[in-house]
């Protein structure tokens, strides 16, 4: 049984990238506006994150060094610090949004306004980060997050015109009412979400937490090859079920409740209950992933003890960071800011963090001092270079597209 649980790190990591609160809503919005014509971007993102997560996992397993160690070591203190600031902002903004997301998921069940729930959620998240074992976080939230498969079942039950959905996969099938700039904006947003930098921070640090060695490379690859494609499937299933229900009716998706509506229609109350549980687990899981990632990246940049595999007393600085970011998150959310809006802003900082994170991974994955015989092969290098170019283009395009399309409104 333990062997099957070993892939839950990859699943939890992928949940934080593909179906966290911002992406749950973005996926449904994309489905409602563009049908399945952006699904190819998700596929591209899945391949990209697999390539780089595998490299970072391999470095972590063989050398015991997690991703931000590599960033500092190869880029030096200055550029490394620029990346630290950029990726901390992405991760912190997402962490804020996830705590709000957990509150939104609870609001669906309790009808209590989400701002009132925020302090309780923040305390719960912090207690989990402080007390729970890494493997329990991974197993419980990773497994519960699988409840989102309800979207795929609902899609099947909704009985869509499969031929129509398949035909809609081509970018040429973009609905005529939407402009190409908006299409490109959502494309970049989906790609950026799939490749968001805290996934590799969390995945590689998680590998160190799990004490992977060169013997565990198979487990690591299983994590990558099951986790991220599953995240991609969930992402496309949400978009496709929204496309089936909302696109013909011309309904715009704005809230988390609407995201779950196709499941309520397709599977009824039980299905909805399962999917709301999935919302809760996915946002809570993403909160743990991003919360821990802020601690991991700061600790790895400055070199002090980190992680849940050492006693909290020994990693006092790490746990202090977790406490501080949780307090900041609760404070920001109590101003009443919309959590989904917060994740959209984080795209700006991704533009800085993405290339500066993946470039050093690619360089170090070729360094025999780190990896010995496990350095990159030709395929990993070819894909790595191609994706580095795509990432750079996406990063450069992100901010102009955001301005031109007013964050996808236009």
């Amino acid at each position, binding site marked *: 049984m333990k062997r099957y649980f070993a892939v839950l790190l990859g699943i939890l990591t992928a949940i934080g990238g593909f179906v966290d609160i911002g992406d749950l809503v973005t996926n449904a919005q994309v489905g409602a506006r563009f049908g399945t014509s952006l699904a190819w971007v998700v596929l591209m993102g899945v391949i990209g994150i697999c390539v780089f997560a595998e490299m970072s996992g391999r470095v972590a397993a063989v*050398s015991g*060094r997690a991703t931000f160690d590599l960033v500092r070591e190869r880029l030096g203190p*200055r550029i490394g610090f620029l990346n630290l600031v950029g990726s901390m902002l992405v991760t912190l903004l997402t962490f804020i949004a996830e705590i709000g997301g957990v509150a939104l998921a609870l609001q669906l069940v309790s009808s209590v306004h989400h701002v009132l729930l925020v302090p309780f959620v923040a305390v719960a998240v912090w207690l989990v980060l402080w007390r729970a074992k890494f493997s329990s976080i991974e197993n419980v939230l990773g497994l519960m997050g699988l409840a989102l498969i309800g979207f795929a079942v609902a899609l099947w039950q909704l009985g869509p015109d499969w031929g129509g959905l398949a035909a809609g996969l081509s970018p040429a099938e973009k609905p005529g009412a939407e402009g190409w700039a908006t299409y490109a904006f959502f494309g970049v947003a989906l790609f950026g979400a799939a490749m968001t930098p805290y996934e590799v921070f969390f995945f590689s640090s998680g590998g160190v937490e799990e004490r992977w060695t060169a013997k565990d490379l198979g487990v690591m690859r299983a994590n990558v090859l099951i986790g991220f494609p599953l995240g991609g499937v969930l992402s496309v299933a949400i978009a496709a079920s929204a496309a089936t229900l909302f696109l013909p009716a011309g309904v715009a998706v704005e809230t988390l409740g609407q995201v779950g509506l196709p499941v309520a229609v397709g599977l009824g109350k039980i299905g909805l209950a399962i999917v709301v549980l999935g919302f809760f687990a996915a946002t809570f899981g993403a909160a743990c992933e991003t919360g821990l990632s802020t601690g991991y990246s700061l600790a790895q940049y400055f*070199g002090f003890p980190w992680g849940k595999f050492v006693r909290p007393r020994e990693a006092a600085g790490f746990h202090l960071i977790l406490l501080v970011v949780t307090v900041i998150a609760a404070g920001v959310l109590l101003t009443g800011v919309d959590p989904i809006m917060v994740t959209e802003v984080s795209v700006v900082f991704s533009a800085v963090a993405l290339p500066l994170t993946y470039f050093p991974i*690619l360089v170090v994955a070729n360094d025999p001092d780190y990896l010995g015989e496990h350095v990159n092969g030709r395929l990993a290098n070819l894909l790595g270079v191609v994706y580095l170019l795509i990432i750079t283009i996406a990063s450069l395009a992100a901010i102009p597209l955001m301005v031109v399309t007013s964050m996808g409104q236009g």
Partner: protein
Amino acid sequence: MGSLAERNGYDVGLHLLDRQVLGADDRPVGKVDDVELLLDDGGALVPTALLLGLPALLPRFGPRLGSGLARLHRLVREAAADQDLPLVVDFDLVEEVASDVRLSEPSPRLLHRMAHERADDPRRCRVGDLLGLAVRCAALPRHSKVLDLRMVGSPNGSGEHRVAALLVGPGRPGALLGYDRRSEPGPAAVAAVIHWLHRHARVVELGEGVEIDNEAGEVRIRAGTSLAPLRG
């Protein structure tokens, strides 16, 4: 080429700076934020200690940003007057340099704060101060800098350690990313770009023709000193 341990010679900036330092008990101690060098009586530059902590890290952010940050740090840590000096780990304690720097003793009570006399000793300098120094040499492009310091000796062995050569050329320290060493082939495309960017970089042996002037903040290389290309 074998691992770092088997090689005779390494580059300080590439192989030592910014690596994770672990105690013998596997606990993280800090990063190699800087390395202290001593100009010994024979005129050789010898590494004497790893420097850890913000007082070692912040000056490496460059003259303007670095001193600003250092001032900010002193302001925050005013209570402890000695906090503007870095922590010192003697070079003898370095047991192994691989993807991390492993020390021969467990981490508690390993570190001590640098003494003021040591910090003011004119014979001592830091690698961070040497990297990025302007290089004056007729045979090199005008904006050349010190890119890295090449050492003899293996960081793991006990034998002789000293700076043997300077890597000089246009660009920024660290921008070579290890592509000057044959052992790191990297993706061919990235390697080709880096090689092209650093096509003017050269290795110059420390010796008669090379004068490091810390006061003026420059390195002067006399005309006629032999400059070797990076690879080969």
